[in-house]
């Protein structure tokens, strides 16, 4: 995974709550068997509308998405994270994330930064009064800066550490291989297996 320390890019105000992962990438785009090429599916239904924020020239090359509460609810599809990354996003800001989405983002190096709702609204105001404004998301300081505005964000300490170091989760878990072996050795024999 690519390490994340800080990122500066165009902020995109998405004034919506409950952006479920079906909206982030509709099911029709989930049929790929490789990890790349999901950018066309990003907000596919909404991008068909001329007035959707990503269809405005100022926001087209955005890389920091600022969304309302409950972003990434619903389906577990990691394709939602891949679609955001493949499009060019590096960070998403929201007052609250769907649990599975937030976990998926952390595994893939997409920063899911949780901000107070009032701060998200303040960011929206900045980005809408100055379309195309840049936003800096700083994982070391845990701040979001846009023009004169600086707000804090929260993220769990473990995900922050892994993102800063760019660490692979599986390799971290495999450091405990001996404990996994020991745990397996004492599992009760009545637990089911799929083979017998």
């Amino acid at each position, binding site marked *: 995974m690519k390490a994340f320390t800080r990122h500066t890019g165009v902020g995109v105000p998405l004034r919506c709550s409950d952006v479920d992962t*079906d909206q982030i990438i509709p*099911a029709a785009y989930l049929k790929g068997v490789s990890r790349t090429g999901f950018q066309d599916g990003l907000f596919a239904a909404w991008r068909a509308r001329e007035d959707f924020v990503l269809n405005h020239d100022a926001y087209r090359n955005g890389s920091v998405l600022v969304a309302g509460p409950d972003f990434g609810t619903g389906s*577990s599809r990691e394709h939602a994270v891949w679609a955001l990354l493949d499009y060019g996003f590096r960070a998403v800001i929201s007052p609250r994330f769907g649990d599975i989405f937030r976990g998926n983002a952390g595994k893939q190096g997409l920063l899911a930064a949780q901000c107070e709702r009032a701060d998200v609204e303040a960011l929206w105001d900045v980005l809408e009064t100055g379309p195309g404004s840049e936003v800096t998301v700083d994982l070391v300081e845990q701040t979001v800066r846009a023009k004169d505005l600086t707000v804090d964000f929260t993220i769990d300490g*473990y995900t922050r550490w892994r993102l800063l170091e760019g660490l692979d989760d599986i390799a971290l878990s495999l450091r405990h291989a001996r404990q996994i072996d020991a745990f397996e050795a004492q599992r009760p*024999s*009545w637990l089911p297996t799929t083979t017998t």
Partner: protein
Amino acid sequence: MGRTLAAKVWDAHVVHRGGSDPDDDLRGAAPDLLYIDLHLVHEVTSPQAFDGLRLAARRLRRPDLTIATEDHNVPTTDIELPIADAVSRTQMETLRRNCAEFGVRLHPMGDLEQGIVHVMGPQLGLTQPGMTVVCGDSHTSTHGAFGALAFGIGTSEVEHVLATQTLPLRPFKTMAVIVQSRDGTLPTGVTSKDIILAVIARIGTGGAAGYILEYRGNVIEQLSMEARMTICNMSIEAGARAGMIAPDATTFAYLAGRPHAPAGAQWDAAMRYWSGLHTDADATFDVQVHVDADALTPFVTWGTNPGQGLPLSERVPDPEQMSDEGERCAARKALAYMGLQPGTPLREIAVDTVFLGSCTNGRIEDLRAAAAVLAGRQVREGVRMLVVPGSMRVRAQAEAEGLHEVFTAAGAQWRSAGCSMCLGMNSDQLAAGERCASTSNRNFEGRQGTGGRTHLVSPLVAAATAIRGTLSSPTDLN
């Protein structure tokens, strides 16, 4: 200090306690590493995970704790023919290749056990109390009905479980949802689907984010296993990754004799663990929610998230009357998408499609309930009704009971098993502007097809709606 059911199952699966290494403090709140007892796999969220294993030259640690089926993409008609959609076909062929290469048991299309992954696990007896169960699908919460800790994971986590049979997890908070009535029964025409829709409307789609739910109370205790699965299934629609119900005599009776349930002395040993799987009397939950089941009536959604629901007897709400600005905006947007006017009685909303199926309501009891309403009646002209059993075994059982004849005589379409119109990855989709009463779990924009409009309902409401052509409950038929 007593422990909750969730804590007991969690503690029994800790391989490595977060923060217990000297260097762990470098990482802040390090997660616990939990062992996973059962990993369910399907074609949509697994290809990149198997690729990841190959790229890193990692083996699949426990093929014997892994099982796969084809559900999201499969057609529900002409299943003996090659799949017409080339992209869907590639995804299923990829799953078949991966399962062959890594030695994973697969129930492919046409197999008796094939079906929605969350119907397959329980019907095989693979889902048992006190287990940890994961799948790259958010409705894995279904298996919590057995007192298992079961939750959906992303593809990176699928790869993680394939490689290590563990997952690093941060502790959750707990929320008790206590459903009670005077005598533990539900009012006539009210089902477990109505309970969970009412709960989600109450706490919202993010209300349980970060929590494990435990459903309790005399009503839950009297529910069948299948009704419990319906409730746990939709925990994720309230934002909870997992929902659980303590195992009891109902659970054990359901399990006994299933292909993978323990038998003989193994059963006795399992029972010793299972019988301790309940929240201790002196344990506390972080939050408690009480539901008065005597006051419940059939519940339907009017909007574009599962929290936007009301009793069927109500009217489409007026966004301008909502005090919260966020809710008001969401409701305006939802009504525009749904093509609904504030003040319209929900009972007057006409549908053109009825979908009976999904991991929420595609089990035999759901089919029986709907068939009982449809028997001797006709699906209204101009309405198409799809009946999609959750698995081929459910389909076979329904046919043995003659339910398929009830459905076809009423004018409904009797299909093969799969996720089907719940998410429209196959050709079972709504056209733009079409309106569906659906027993599935999500009414998101475009969920059942681009521009399609979904009202979530129980199987009883689905059947009555098919007959009347507008959102209805069986009592409206008299």
